[in-house]
C-alpha cells in the first residue's frame, strides 16, 4: 500500500490513505536457538608448483564425478594499458571463441557435447577462466584451458562483434543514471588509483587485435598464474594433466600493480547533471583496505547492518521513516590491494539533499554508537549463513579458492571464516566504521537534475557539477533559461479533449476540457469527476488580449457543495470561494490586490498548451490560490521531450513540470499542433490522467 500525502489544495484526486501496516502476531513460542558453528570440514587443499612457476591447488572431492578447473592470471582490468581501458575485458570475451585448432563453434560444441560450461571473465586484479564438467573429461578441460591461454585465435570477426556490443553497452550505461553513478563513484573514490580506471566507448574503439596480443604475451605467464582444480581427481592426476597441458609454458612473472594510493581529496559532492531527472541516484562511500586485511569480517557485518538483506538501516531510514527512496543498499567490494565500500540509494529529486544528510548520519552513527546486541547477532547470523551456502559445489569451491588466493588470504580462510565472523563484536564494527568511513574520507556522488539540486546540496558540502561525459559545468549552464510568461491563446483552437483518470492502472474518473470562443473571449471549461467522491466544473474566461477575467467553479466533494466565483479586473481579484477543508466547509471572501500578471491556480492547466515550449525553458509567475486566499510563486519548466503512448495514440510530447504548489505535477503537451495535454502525472502518487480518443469524450462520466 502506498502512503499518499493528503493535500487540501489539490482540486481532484484526494486519494488519502495511510499505509496499512501488517501487525505481526506475537509469537508465543520462540524458534529454537542455533547449535554452535563448527570449523569447516572440507578436506585440505593440496599445493604444488610446476618448474615454470605455475601454482597448482587441488581439492579432492570424490562425492560426485564432477570437476571444476579455474585458471587465473594477473591480467585484470587494473593492468589495461593507458588509453586502452577495456583490454582485459575484450580479451576475456574472446578466449572462449576459438583457440588451438578449434573455431568458436568447435569450442562451443565440444563443451556442450559433454554437458559442461566454459567461461572467462576479467575482474580488476585477474583474468580468470573456468571449466566445469564431468570428471572423466578432465583432459578436455585442461586442453581447452591451455589452448585458450597459450594459443587463442582472437578472430577478427568475433573481435568486432564483441567490440560493437561492448561499445553499445557502454553508451547505454553513460545515459543510465545508475551505471553513470557507479562509474563516477569509482573514479571519485579511487582518484587516480588503477582500480578506478574504466572503459569508455573511445578507449574500446581504439583497441586493435595487436594490442590484445601484446597484452596476452606480457601478462599470461606461468609464474604468477594460479590453477585451481576441485572435484573427483587426485593431486597426482591433476599434476600430470597440468604438466601435459602447461609444462611447456614459459616466461617470467609479469610486473605487479605499482603501489599507490588514491590522490588526496577535499570534501565535496560530485553532482552529475541529467536535465529534467525526477529522481536522483546517490552513491556514498570510500576505499577500504587490502584484500587480506583482518577487518573484512567486521566490514561484512557492518555492511549487512547498514545495507543488505531485509530491513537494513538504510531502508528503514530512507524508505520507512521517510518515504524518500525507492531502493537503498550497500556493498563491500574487495580487491587485492584496495577495496571500496559503497552505499547507494535512488530517491526523488526533492529529497536528495535530505537523503544525503541521512546517509551521512547513518554512517556517523556507526562510527559513534555500538550496534545493539540483537541487530549485531542477526547480522552475524546472516553473514555466517550465506558464507556456508556458497561453498557447496565443485564450481563454487573452485571460484572461492581462487578468489581467496587472489585477495592474499590463506587457504584456511574458507574453513575458519564462519567461526571468526560469529564472534565479531560491536566494538569491532564501530572500529571498522571509524577506519573505513571517516567523515572526511567519504566520496559523495549524486546523479540528477543539477538545476534542482545544486543549491540544496551546496548547503551540505561544496558541489562540483559535471556533465555525463565528464565536462565540468557551471551552475549557470545547468539552470533553465528564464522567460517572461507570455502565452498565445490563438494556439488553443476550439476543441474538446478527454482524459481518463487512473490510479495504478484502474480508471477512477474522467476529465473533459473544452475551449470555445464567445465573441471576443476565449472560454475554457473543465469538467472533472472521480467515481468515489468528486465532481466539479470549472469555467475560465480570458479576454481578447488573453488576460484572465473570470474564474467560476461549481462542484461536489464527498457530498458537500463547493463553489468559486472570482473576477480578475483592475489589479484585483475579488469574489468568494466555498471550499471543503478537513474541518468542514468554509466560505472565503476574496479581495486581494495583485501586482503584475497573476494566474488563477485553476487556469494553469488551460495555459500550458499556449506557451512557447522549448527544452530547458522556465517561467516563474504568481498564482492566486483560491483555496488558500493568497498568492504563491510557481514555476513551469520544460524538462524533457519524450515519446509516449496513451489511449488516444502515440505522441511526441514535452514534459512540463509545475513546481511551487503543494504537489508537483508533470504535464505532457504535444509537440505538434493541435497542442493538447495528453498526460498528466502527480509526482509521488499512482494517479495519472491519460488522453483518450475523441469518440470516447461522449461517454458519460463514470
Amino acid at each position, binding site marked *: 500500500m502506498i502512503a499518499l500525502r493528503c493535500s487540501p489544495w489539490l482540486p481532484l484526486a484526494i486519494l488519502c490513505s495511510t499505509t496499512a501496516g*501488517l501487525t*505481526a*502476531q506475537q*509469537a*508465543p*513460542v*520462540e*524458534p*529454537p*536457538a*542455533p*547449535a*554452535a*558453528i*563448527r570449523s*569447516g*570440514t*572440507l578436506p585440505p587443499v593440496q599445493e604444488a608448483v610446476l618448474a615454470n612457476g605455475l601454482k597448482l591447488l587441488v581439492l579432492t*572431492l*570424490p*562425492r*560426485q*564425478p*564432477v570437476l571444476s578447473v579455474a585458471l587465473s592470471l594477473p591480467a585484470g582490468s587494473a593492468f589495461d594499458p593507458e588509453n586502452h581501458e577495456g583490454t582485459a575485458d575484450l580479451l576475456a570475451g574472446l578466449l572462449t571463441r576459438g583457440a588451438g585448432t578449434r573455431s568458436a563453434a568447435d569450442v*562451443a*560444441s565440444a563443451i*556442450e*557435447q*559433454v*554437458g*559442461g560450461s566454459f567461461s572467462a571473465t576479467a575482474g580488476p586484479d585477474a583474468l580468470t577462466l573456468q571449466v*566445469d*564438467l*564431468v*570428471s572423466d573429461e578432465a583432459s578436455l578441460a585442461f586442453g581447452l584451458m591451455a589452448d585458450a591461454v597459450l594459443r587463442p585465435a582472437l578472430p577478427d570477426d568475433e573481435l568486432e562483434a564483441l567490440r560493437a556490443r561492448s561499445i553499445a553497452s557502454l553508451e547505454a550505461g553513460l545515459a543510465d543514471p545508475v551505471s553513470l553513478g557507479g562509474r563516477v563513484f569509482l573514479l571519485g573514490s579511487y582518484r587516480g588509483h588503477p582500480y578506478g580506471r574504466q572503459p569508455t566507448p573511445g578507449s574500446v574503439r581504439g583497441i586493435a587485435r595487436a594490442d590484445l596480443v601484446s597484452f596476452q604475451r606480457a601478462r599470461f605467464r606461468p609464474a604468477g598464474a594460479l590453477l585451481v582444480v576441485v572435484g*573427483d581427481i587426485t593431486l597426482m592426476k591433476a599434476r600430470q594433466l597440468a604438466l601435459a597441458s602447461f609444462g611447456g609454458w614459459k616466461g617470467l612473472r609479469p610486473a605487479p600493480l605499482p603501489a599507490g594510493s588514491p590522490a588526496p581529496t577535499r570534501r565535496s559532492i560530485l553532482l552529475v547533471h541529467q536535465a529534467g531527472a525526477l529522481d536522483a541516484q546517490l552513491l556514498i562511500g570510500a576505499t577500504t583496505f587490502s584484500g587480506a586485511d583482518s577487518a573484512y569480517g567486521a566490514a561484512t557485518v557492518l555492511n549487512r547492518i547498514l545495507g543488505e*538483506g*531485509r530491513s537494513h538501516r538504510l531502508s528503514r531510514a530512507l524508505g520507512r521513516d521517510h518515504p524518500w527512496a525507492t531502493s537503498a543498499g550497500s556493498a563491500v567490494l574487495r580487491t587485492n590491494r584496495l577495496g571500496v565500500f559503497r552505499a547507494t540509494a535512488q530517491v526523488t529529486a526533492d529529497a536528495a539533499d535530505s537523503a544525503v544528510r541521512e546517509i551521512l548520519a547513518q554512517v556517523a552513527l556507526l562510527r559513534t554508537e555500538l550496534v545493539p546486541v540483537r541487530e549485531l547477532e*542477526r547480522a552475524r*547470523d*546472516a*553473514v*555466517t*549463513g*550465506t*558464507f*556456508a*551456502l556458497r*561453498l*557447496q*559445489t*565443485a*564450481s563454487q569451491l573452485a571460484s572461492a579458492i581462487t578468489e581467496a588466493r587472489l585477495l592474499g588470504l590463506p587457504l584456511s580462510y574458507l574453513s575458519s571464516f*564462519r567461526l571468526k565472523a560469529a564472534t565479531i563484536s560491536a566494538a569491532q564494527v564501530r572500529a571498522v566504521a571509524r577506519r573505513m568511513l571517516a567523515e572526511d574520507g567519504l566520496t559523495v556522488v549524486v546523479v540528477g537534475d543539477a538545476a534542482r539540486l545544486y543549491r540544496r546540496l551546496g548547503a551540505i558540502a561544496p558541489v562540483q557539477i559535471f556533465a555525463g561525459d565528464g565536462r565540468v559545468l557551471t551552475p549557470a549552464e545547468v539552470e533553465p533559461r528564464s522567460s517572461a510568461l507570455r502565452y498565445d491563446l490563438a494556439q488553443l483552437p476550439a476543441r474538446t479533449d478527454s482524459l481518463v483518470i487512473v490510479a495504478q492502472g484502474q480508471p477512477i474518473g474522467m476529465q473533459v476540457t473544452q475551449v470555445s470562443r464567445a465573441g471576443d473571449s476565449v472560454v475554457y471549461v473543465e469538467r472533472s469527476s472521480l467515481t468515489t467522491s468528486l465532481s466539479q466544473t470549472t469555467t475560465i474566461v480570458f479576454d481578447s488580449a488573453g488576460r484572465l477575467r473570470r474564474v467560476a467553479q461549481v462542484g461536489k466533494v464527498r457530498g458537500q457543495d463547493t463553489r468559486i466565483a472570482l473576477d480578475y479586473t483592475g489589479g484585483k481579484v475579488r469574489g468568494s470561494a466555498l471550499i471543503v477543508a478537513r474541518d468542514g466547509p468554509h466560505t472565503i471572501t476574496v479581495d486581494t490586490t495583485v501586482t503584475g500578471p497573476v494566474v488563477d491556480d485553476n487556469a494553469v492547466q488551460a495555459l500550458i498548451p499556449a506557451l512557447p515550449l522549448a527544452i530547458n525553458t522556465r517561467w516563474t509567475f504568481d498564482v492566486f490560490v483560491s483555496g488558500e486566499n493568497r498568492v504563491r510563486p510557481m514555476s513551469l519548466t520544460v524538462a524533457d521531450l519524450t515519446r509516449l503512448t496513451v489511449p488516444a495514440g502515440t505522441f511526441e510530447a514535452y514534459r512540463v513540470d509545475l513546481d511551487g504548489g503543494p504537489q508537483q505535477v508533470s504535464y505532457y503537451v504535444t509537440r505538434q499542433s493541435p497542442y493538447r495535454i495528453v498526460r498528466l502525472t502527480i509526482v509521488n502518487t499512482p494517479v495519472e490522467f491519460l488522453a483518450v480518443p475523441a469518440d470516447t469524450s461522449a461517454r458519460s462520466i463514470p
Partner: protein
Amino acid sequence: MFPRSLRRDRCPALLALLICLSSRPLAAQSAPGHIAFEQYALPNGLSVILSPDHTSQVVAVDIWYRAGSRDEPPVRAGLARLFERLMYAGSANVPPGGHAAIVENVGGHGEAGADEDIARYIQSLPSNRLNLGLWLEADRMGSLAINDTTIAEARDGLLGELQQKIGEEAYTAAVLDAVASLYDSTTCPGYTHPPTGRVQTITAISTADVQGFYRRHYNPSNARLVVTGDFDPTEARSLIRQYFGDLPTADTAPAVSCGVTFAPGARTLSTRDRLASQPAVGLFYRIPGAGHADMPALQLLGLILGRGRDARLAQVLGGPGLAIATQAGVLGDRVGPSAFGLFAVAADGVSADSLQALLEAQVRWIMSDSLGEAELARAKHIFRATTVSGRERAEDIAEALHHAATFRGGADAVNTDLSLSMSLTLADVRRIARTWFVPANAVTLVVAPGAGR
C-alpha cells in the same frame, strides 16, 4: 506456466513455456555419485529420508506433500498452487511472512512450488540451523494461518502471477490448453486443467475450499520429509520426533486416477494469440508417467531433439533461420500419464504449414534409421553431466531423493536410474520413439498471431 519443476533446473529459458527436461533421477552407481540414505516413518505416517553428507556446512529440509493440481476440482483450478504463497502466511508460532524472513535472516534460502502431482517446500540453511528448519516446517504443517485475510492475499498474488504469465507471455496459454486437451475430463479429470488455474476458478476459491484442502493434504500421512547435508542422523531423528511426532495422523488422500487412451486419433487445435508476433506450431504426444520403463529413453529423446545448439531442432530449424525459437522434451514429472512436446516459433516469412511439416519430419527422423549413435552418445553425455552436477548441493540431493521416491518407484532408484539410461541402445530408443510418437497419439497446436483470443 508449464512444468514448474523445470524452472528449478538449469533449463534454457528460451520461451517461458518450458518444454524442458526434468533430469532428476538416475544416479551413478559406483562410489562417486552414490547417495547413501536411510528411511523410516513416524507413527503418525510421516515418511522420512535422511541422507547426511559433511562436505559443506549446509543442511536442506525438504518436504513434499501429495497436494498437486490433480487433487483439486477443476472448478477450483489454482487451489493447489495457492498454497505456494499461503504457506508463508504464518503459523501458530511464526508471524506473517516469518517463514521467509527467518530463513533469510540466517543466511538461508527457501523455495516453494506446486505442480500437477505434488507441492514442495525446500529450505537450505547453514547446518547449525537444522533445528530451526525442522521447527518451521512442523509449525506450518500443523497450524498454518488460514483465514480470509491470508487467503485473499495469496489469491491476489496468484492472480497477479497468472496475469503476468498468460497476459504477458506469448504462446503460454495456448500451450497449456493444448497439453490439457491431451486428456479426457471424465477419465482423467486431474490433468485436464493446468495448475495455473484461471481467473474465474481462482476467484471462486473459498475459505472452506482452502481449509478442506489443507486438512486433506497438508498432514503427516501425505507428506515426506527429506533431510540432507551436514547433520547427525541421531540428532535429526530426535528433533523430527520432537517437532513432528505430535502432529495428528490423517487419512491418506484419495488417489486420483487418470485413465488415458493412447493414440485415440490425431487432432489439431488452432488458436490466435494477440501477444504473439509470429506463428508457432507444437506437437504434443501422450506418454506414460515418470515411473514407466520407457521414461529414460523419452528423456534422452528430448535432449536429442531439443537441448543445445547442436540439438536436432536447433540444427534443422534454428540454424537455417526457419525458426526463431525451438524446444522439445518431456513436460515435467508426473505420476500419471505425461506429455512430450516439440515446439517452434516461425521466423519471418515461414508459414505455420511449413513449420508443421518441418516438425513432423523431425519426429519421423527420430523414428528412422537416420537417428545415429553420435546423437545418442551426445544425449547420454549431457544427461549424465546434468544429473551428477545436479547432485552437489544439499537441496538438489534432497530433491533427487524425493523424485526417486515419488516418481521412480522408491528412493533406491536414485542410485540405479543413471546406469539404466546409460545402458539404453539405439534400438531401444528407436523402438520407444515408434511406440509413442505416432500421429494418432498427437495433438497438433497451431498458433496464429493477432487478436481474436
